[in-house]
């Protein structure tokens, strides 16, 4: 059996350039699959990784998502908040009010969203994960103090806003006591473009005390789904409506992201598969040429006693060996490419993520390479095995 390998190896080595090109063809196809899968997994983990930290959170909103937009159906009441607080298994709860307001800094006016809520609770949700760049977080008695997000400080107005600067929000004067760091992708939409006030101050500035957002933390992540259902029930009951409140657990969000990424990976792999199809056509072509060129040799082998099955296995072995090497090279190239892609894409998009090269992906890549080798080599190998000895021997 070892000698069959040796014989196959000799033939492969004889046509060195051709064999190398075939190996490259497969390697590129496999590398594409491996690298894209790994980048895909890396991106998924980067995003879900951060979310996992918030796995014990439930977001409750008075509205629903139809298609891709959120439609606000109303607002929560203090009673809603108290009732939710009573549900067992809830560790923390914070109610937020938000609305757009006209904000003036020096001579520039801009509409900015104001968020108001319990200072301690808001603080625990945002200050630690994002970080304060300048100054400090709000205190309970900061009636005229505000903390601003990174984009508010740097992008919204002509000048950069610092601590102790004064802002005019809906006509009222406020003083900046803190500026947030630039938030990572996940919190970016929650913090960067907002100005934070105490609940009391926001009620005054926004002239409303409507609760537009409730954030809940549970003790046991496994109970999150259940508790979310309970929250919806309680609030819906209070309002006498069936489908008023929306409670999203991080778990379901992570699942949704997972689904999206499965689709993304599927598309990417589909594209890479095209490369593989091209490669396997190439292999079949190469093997057919090889068989034609070796017609005479095949005839001689049959004349000295080789069975048809001997010839078949010899050629199949050749194409399998070439594609196995291609698979290994492809996996290595793919892993390297994945790291390179994730580094450069990360820099370009401003997020940090590393490609995740899973052993299953590597094994899968090699298996695919082998299958490609055997399948594309089969027809030529069969052709070789069926050659009549006398015709082949006569062929020059």
């Amino acid at each position, binding site marked *: 059996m070892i000698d069959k390998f040796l014989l196959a190896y000799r033939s492969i080595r004889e046509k060195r350039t051709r064999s190398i090109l075939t190996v490259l063809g497969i390697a590129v196809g496999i590398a594409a699959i491996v690298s894209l899968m790994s980048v895909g997994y890396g991106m998924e983990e980067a995003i879900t990784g951060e979310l996992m930290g918030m796995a014990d959170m439930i977001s409750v909103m008075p509205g629903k998502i139809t298609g891709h937009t959120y439609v606000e159906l109303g607002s929560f009441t203090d009673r809603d908040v108290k009732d939710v607080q009573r549900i067992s298994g809830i560790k923390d709860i914070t109610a937020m009010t938000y609305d757009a307001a006209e904000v003036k800094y020096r001579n520039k006016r801009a509409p900015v969203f104001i968020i108001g809520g319990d200072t301690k609770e808001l603080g625990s949700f945002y200050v630690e994960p994002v970080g304060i760049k300048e100054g400090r977080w709000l205190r309970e008695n900061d009636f005229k103090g505000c903390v601003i997000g990174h984009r508010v400080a740097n992008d919204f107005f002509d000048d950069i806003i610092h601590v102790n600067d004064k802002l005019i929000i809906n006509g009222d004067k406020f003083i900046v006591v803190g500026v947030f760091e630039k938030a990572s992708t996940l919190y970016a939409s929650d913090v960067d473009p907002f100005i934070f006030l105490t609940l009391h101050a926001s009620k005054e500035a926004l002239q409303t005390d409507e609760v537009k957002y409730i954030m809940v933390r549970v003790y046991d992540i496994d109970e999150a789904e259940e508790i979310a259902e309970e929250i919806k029930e309680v609030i819906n009951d209070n309002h006498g409506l069936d489908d008023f409140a929306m409670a999203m657990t991080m778990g379901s969000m992570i699942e949704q992201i997972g689904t999206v990424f499965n689709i993304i990976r599927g598309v990417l792999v589909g594209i890479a598969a095209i490369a593989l199809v091209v490669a396997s056509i190439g292999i079949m072509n190469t093997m057919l040429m090889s068989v034609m060129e070796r017609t005479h040799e095949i005839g001689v082998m049959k004349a000295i006693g080789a069975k048809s099955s001997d010839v078949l296995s010899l050629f199949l072995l050749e194409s399998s060996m070439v594609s196995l090497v291609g698979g290994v090279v492809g996996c290595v190239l793919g892993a390297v490419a994945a790291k390179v892609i994730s580094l450069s894409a990360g820099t370009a998009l401003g997020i940090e993520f590393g490609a995740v090269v899973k052993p299953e992906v590597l094994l899968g890549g090699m298996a695919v390479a082998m299958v490609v080798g055997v399948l594309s080599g089969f027809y030529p190998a069969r052709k070789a095995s069926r050659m*009549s000895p006398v015709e082949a*021997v006569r062929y020059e």
Partner: protein
Amino acid sequence: MIRTENLTKVYQMGDAEVYALHDVNLDIQDGEFIAIIGPSGSGKSTLLNLIGCLDKPTSGAVFIDGINTGKLNENGLAEIRRRKIGFIFQQFNLVHTLNALENVALPMFFAGVKRETRLKRAEELLAKVGLGDRIYHKPSEMSGGQQQRVAIARALSNDPEVVIGDEPTGNVDTETGNTIMGLLEGLNKEGRTIIVVTHDAEIAARAGRTKRMRDGKVLD
């Protein structure tokens, strides 16, 4: 013993039918040294191919030790080619990616013989044909005569009863041709049946019996 009965081989060339062999009846005894001589196109190579089980007749039969080869399937024919017959070609036909030792071992490899045994026997055979010092040389590193001697050693690989040569001296000089014929004579003395096809009368003369062929028929 090899026997042909009304052996016929017809080729289709477009619309025309070409009779390469026409009702050939031939008896070859065990241990004979027979030469078949004839001009180009006389059908001698076709006859050899049919006896050597490289090809199947259009009609008629070839009997080897009483077995009708026409009734054998591909594997059966391969078996005969492997065990009973050693073939020598005009163009040597060695596998050029393998060295002399490996070439001689090749038929044994197909017969499933163990590696150690193969290589040992191959070395012995190469020594027998006078190439003991060239066993690791590739065909490209050998002269025509040396290659043909390797081919003879290869033909003896599985210890066949019959050795068939299709113009074995056709591609070598006279002196080498003599050496090769000498080797074949030696094999004949060992008890093997030797069938040689040639267009060279001098070569044919060294055989025990000569048969002439012309236009697909054996002349008496």
